């Protein structure tokens, strides 16, 4: 079972009477690109927070990179990376300073940070921007940089919360090139998105509706299962019946 990155069993989170995520059970393989889809309010964010060790589940079990979600949250945090659309990097620090800071947080040595920041800057073609404040970079570059920083410490799993929202179509594809490269190195990618074409790039997709996982399979099988031509249609088919619209 060494190659299971994420494993959950009836993971549940309640807020009072409200069941945000209801007994979700799934496994994600090491190195897999796993798309975590669902309508607004379906419970994606809640589930993701539990998996990152930020929120304690009400019941159920889960292991992340082999660590228990209740007892070993500190270990979990060492072995995951996280990037969201909202907060990614410090806008008032320059590129190098950001890399150094986040490298330092994850306990990389000075030498490692230096090596890694050099490779990273070359990879992204940011040689001329290395001393520029992150705030002055275009959004697409910021997001690519943020992703690279999130996997700087070679985590087992990286969680991406709508990483490409508002990014231009060319940069969006470059971003996915980075995701593929990371997956090839064995990093598990757990990603949410509102772009349905991006759902197709995932190895497997789970669809959450009203706090439960309604479907989980490869994009191709899902389309077959719902006899749909595109992931858009699969999404509509599943999310249309959602009750929890106002929450």
């Amino acid at each position: 079972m060494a190659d299971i990155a994420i494993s959950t069993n009836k993971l549940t989170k309640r807020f009072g009477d409200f069941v945000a995520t209801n007994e979700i059970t799934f496994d994600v393989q090491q190195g897999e690109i796993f798309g975590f889809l669902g309508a607004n309010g379906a419970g994606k964010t809640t589930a993701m927070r539990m998996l990152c060790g930020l929120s304690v589940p009400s019941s159920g079990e889960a292991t992340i990179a082999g660590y228990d979600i209740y007892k070993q949250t500190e270990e979990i945090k060492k072995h995951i990376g996280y990037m969201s659309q909202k907060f990614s990097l410090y806008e008032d620090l320059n590129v190098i300073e950001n890399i150094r800071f986040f490298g330092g947080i994850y306990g990389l040595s000075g030498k490692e940070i230096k090596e890694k920041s050099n490779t990273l800057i070359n990879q992204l073609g940011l040689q001329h921007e290395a001393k520029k404040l992150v705030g002055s970079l275009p959004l697409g570059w910021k997001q690519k940089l943020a992703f690279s920083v999130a996997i700087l410490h070679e985590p087992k799993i990286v969680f991406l919360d709508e990483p490409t929202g508002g990014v231009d179509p060319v940069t969006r594809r470059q971003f996915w090139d980075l995701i593929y490269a990371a997956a090839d190195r064995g990093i598990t990618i757990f990603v949410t998105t509102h772009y349905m074409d991006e759902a197709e790039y995932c190895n497997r997709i789970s669809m959450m509706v009203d706090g439960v996982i309604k479907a989980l399979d490869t994009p191709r099988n899902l389309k077959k299962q719902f006899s749909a031509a595109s992931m858009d249609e699969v999404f509509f088919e599943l999310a249309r019946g959602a009750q929890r619209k106002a929450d």
Partner: protein
Amino acid sequence: MGDVVLTNISKTYNDGKTVAVDDVSFSVNKGELFGLIGPDGAGKTSIFRILTTLLIPDGGTASVSGSDVVKDYKTIRRNIGYMPGKFSLYQDLTVEENLNFFATLFDTSIAANYDLVKEIYVQLEPFKKRRAAKLSGGMKQKLALCCALIHKPEVLFLDEPTTGVDAVSRKEFWEMLYRLKEQGITILVSTPYMDEATLCERIALIQGGKIMSIDTPDNIIGQYPKKMFAVRAEKMSTLLKELREYDPIESCFAFGEYHHVTFKAENGNNAEALNTYLNQKGYEQVHVKQTSATIEDCFIRQMNE
């Protein structure tokens, strides 16, 4: 004569160091559903703010329903509805209180323009005692639209109304826009989602403060200069690299379950040649077919030009 007209509008920030809008001209006809399509930072919000009289342009002129955006700002403010990109209602007020507040602000009441907002309002009504902060993304969007419509505006400006909203809510939102269009309201909408472009009557593709093209979505797609092919095989990520290294190919981008490919020379046997090539390389389940370009293809092409 257009209902919304921009002539050589430009806008810079930081003392001219950041160019947000660069010599933009276009016009929107009365009753038209016009889309401004582009990623974040393309200048969409600046254009909207100039048209809604919130910003003064550095150069050029613009008018809404015949009124100048600088001189006649008061007239414009009476006649337009505006929904900014950020959710800008009072989170600590209930749905009903928000609506009443905005109705009164425009010197009208919910009852007076009920026809216009009815379809949206019935969806909100079960939650009317709920504070706006507790609504879902989709519901917030509907409430904001309702508030922007409550005074029966002639022109409606919607700045990224569907950003961060799930696909189902987005679809519902566009259906509402169609119904509003039928009432004769001119609608300007901006979006970073390229797939929404085809839902507009006419669109402007915008990038880096410049308009790349303005036309109907069909015409823009029709003007795509190359034949588009969709390619699929077992290993999509390595396939992408492989395709980019294949000499006859001009461009190659991932597009959902297919990769979109154009060739440098338009030969009749391009598809077959590619098929054979990939089979030789050992790819399984290779599938190559001709397809039509999408707005996103057009956008990528124009961006790279």
